[in-house]
């Protein structure tokens, strides 16, 4: 048993996990960066409380680099891990401004606010590292522009004193204004980011796992603190330093929450234990979906079963199912057994981030899904059989219709024309009474033949039904019926021809049976449309107890009705009359 992932279910292409040496090198580089920043702080001639500052910085740098590497290793197809690593190193770069030499100090100053933009980017790019919505891309783009572009302008205007190698002029007033604009812009973007997180969470479509929800909350809190920090900077609040420390503390918590979430994906498999117990009870195939949906916490889950004979996917009832398109927001997990497809789970995209859970559920449900597949296959075969039966009936009907038309356009027309010719001839033979009598005799023979032909043609196919509909046709049936018939037709307009013809035959045969066997004094015929079904009911007040001889005609009718996906039922209690009821779906 193996759950295989179609390439498109995890985004474009499946990335390979990074090699272990790469991971170790990354971890070492992170530690080295942390050590360098501590060294820079301690040796700096312009940093107050260097120990605390270095600790705060590394409280962010180290967790982001390390957690990012773990994420990259566990989820190589997500860009979130590399993005976290980047955030860690960018944080380190900003610490270069502590250096005493002007060159690294200038570099550090240039990166001073870049971490803010990177964190906004990171928080909005959860879980797959991509910015999926346009507003998110705009917010992140604007964030980078403000953090880097305006920073560059500030530096040209001489901010940072003599260590700023980029200073072109010394305009502290102008630099102050640019800085205020920069900080307020970043605060506004952070607040917009919170809004985007809230909207995304509402649209997510399935309940978030608790640890994921904790993580998103920590992102939101991070954005709140960034906004507060920026505003405190812009308005030069005395609490700035305190807010800065809290902000760093909060942002540093996010990777911890992330690691917990990653661990929890493994813990979530304990839900699979419940599934195992449920499967032990051998649930009917219909209940399987619900059990799987509970285990996956995805109410939108649907199952598709592979029918090799038909080379298509189907639902439990054998009806064709299309797997969702790659860009539809739905994802597919194929479940194979011994190298052959069994089923596909059609689930919420977000489940792709809980691969372990999907794998475990797939493994647990394997046999039960195979049962479901057999069920679907049986249904599909039945459906196919029904289809071929209805095609046979339809073909028979078409053929009868063709015969009736040939008879009508051929023999019947010719006989009428012949009779007319004889009559015209007769008119011209005024002097020969024997010849006239002979012609008259011939015309009467033709009239009889026409009458017989009409009966034959009607027996082959009731053309009046095709031409004018059931309501018109049954009027004659009722008028010719062997007992008084109360006819009720509650159907507007025409129905599909095959339905009308079948209903006609049911009524015709039932009325004939009443005449032959029922000893009835009256009957009712009701034709109605009920809930998408054409319902035809013929009831008599005769002796009931229909015998097997009557059954053969009824058997033919039942075949016809069932061939159209309907059913024919007969109640015929001895002494209690007979009720024949046909129900046929109209669509």
């Amino acid at each position: 048993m193996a759950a295989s992932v179609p390439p498109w279910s995890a985004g474009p292409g499946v990335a390979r996990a990074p090699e272990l040496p790469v991971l170790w090198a990354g971890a070492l580089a992170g530690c080295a960066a942390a050590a360098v920043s501590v060294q820079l702080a301690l040796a700096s001639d312009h940093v107050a409380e260097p120990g605390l500052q270095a600790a705060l910085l590394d409280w962010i740098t180290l967790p982001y680099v390390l957690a990012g590497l773990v994420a990259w290793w566990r989820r190589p197809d997500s860009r979130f891990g590399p993005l976290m690593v980047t955030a860690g190193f960018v944080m380190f770069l900003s610490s270069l401004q502590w250096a005493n030499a002007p060159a690294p100090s200038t570099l550090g100053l240039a990166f001073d606010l870049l971490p803010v933009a990177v964190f906004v980017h990171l928080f909005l790019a959860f879980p797959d590292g991509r910015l999926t919505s346009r507003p998110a891309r705009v917010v992140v783009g604007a964030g980078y522009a403000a953090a880097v572009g305006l920073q560059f302008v500030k530096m040209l205007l001489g901010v940072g004193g003599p260590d700023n190698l980029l200073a072109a002029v010394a305009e502290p007033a102008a630099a102050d204004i640019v800085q205020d604009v920069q900080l307020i812009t970043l605060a506004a973007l952070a607040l917009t980011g919170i809004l985007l997180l809230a909207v995304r969470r509402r649209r997510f479509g399935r309940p978030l796992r608790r640890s994921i929800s904790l993580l998103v909350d920590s992102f939101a809190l991070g954005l709140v603190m960034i906004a507060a920090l920026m505003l405190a900077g812009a308005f030069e609040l005395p609490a700035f330093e305190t807010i800065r420390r809290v902000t760093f503390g909060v942002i540093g918590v996010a990777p911890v929450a992330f690691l917990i979430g990653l661990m929890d994906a493994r813990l979530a498999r304990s839900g699979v234990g419940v599934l195992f117990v449920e499967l032990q009870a051998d649930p009917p195939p219909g209940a399987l979906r619900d059990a799987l949906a509970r285990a996956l916490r995805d109410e939108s889950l649907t199952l598709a079963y592979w029918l090799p004979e038909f080379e298509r996917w189907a639902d439990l009832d054998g009806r064709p199912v299309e797997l969702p398109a790659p860009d539809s927001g739905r994802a597919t997990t194929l479940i194979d057994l011994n190298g052959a497809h069994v089923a596909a789970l059609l689930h919420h995209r977000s489940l792709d981030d809980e691969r372990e859970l999907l794998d475990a559920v797939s493994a647990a449900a394997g046999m039960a899904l195979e049962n479901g597949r057999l069920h679907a296959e049986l249904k599909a075969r039945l459906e196919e059989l029904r289809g071929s039966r209805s095609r046979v009936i339809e073909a028979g009907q078409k053929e009868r219709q063709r015969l009736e038309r040939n008879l009508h356009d051929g023999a019947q027309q010719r006989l009428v024309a012949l009779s007319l010719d004889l009559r015209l001839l007769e008119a011209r033979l005024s002097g020969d009474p024997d010849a006239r009598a002979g012609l008259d005799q011939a015309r009467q023979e033709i009239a009889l033949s026409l009458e017989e032909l009409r009966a034959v043609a009607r027996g082959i196919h009731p053309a009046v039904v095709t031409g004018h509909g059931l309501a018109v046709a049954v009027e004659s049936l009722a008028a010719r019926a062997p007992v008084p018939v109360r006819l009720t037709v509650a159907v507007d307009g025409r129905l599909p021809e095959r339905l009308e013809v079948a209903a006609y035959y049911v009524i015709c045969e039932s009325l004939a049976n009443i005449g032959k066997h029922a000893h009835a004094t009256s009957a009712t015929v009701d034709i109605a449309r009920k809930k998408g079904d054409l319902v035809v009911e013929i009831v008599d007040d005769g002796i009931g107890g229909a015998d097997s001889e009557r059954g053969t005609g009824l058997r033919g009718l039942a075949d016809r009705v069932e061939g159209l996906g309907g059913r024919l039922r007969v109640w015929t209690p001895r002494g209690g009359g007979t009720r024949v009821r046909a129900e046929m779906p109209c669509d």
Partner: protein
Amino acid sequence: MRLAIAEDSVLLREGVARLLGDAGFDVVAQCGTAEELLLKANSYEIDVAIVDIRLPPTHNDEGLRAALEIRANHPDVGVLVLSQYVEVGLAMKLLADSAEGVGYLLKDRISDVEQFVAAVRRVAAGGSALDPIIVSTLLARRRDDDPLAALTPREHDVLELMATGSSNQGIADALVITLRAVEKYVSSIFGKLGLPSTGSESRRVLAVLMFLRS
């Protein structure tokens, strides 16, 4: 009297046209389709349209629809529908709320030239011509407490002829009785069936048919 004929069998169409021409009618249009008939009914001033119920392209109900359309758009034009089968339901559809200037006959009736010509004249004059099979089917219909049982055999015959659209004179000729006798029978029948007596002969056709149908 100007006629239009719609019938897709050329053999039959020409036979009918010749027959009616010999009988003194002016056949101004011979049509193979319902569409052609409707076009000519609009442009040629015709008195009666004789229509086969099955016409191309589908041979289902094109002829009937053309007949109903002419009845709706040209109330003064008589319509005589011919068919290889006659159906009570179709007769009711064709008559709907008036039996004036309408006929519905089995195609076989064509060869009974005198009767057929008489039917065409009757329809042209605003009367009606219903096939005897329709009437006999309705008369034979089984009923609880059959009110027709109260009729004498002679009254039965009169009712049957009346329902096919025959005039009093026509009934008198067919049964070889006097016009006065026919009138007596008619009022007796209406009395026994509890029908209000109506003036025109075509209106009483509808009244009788509705009675027989219910």
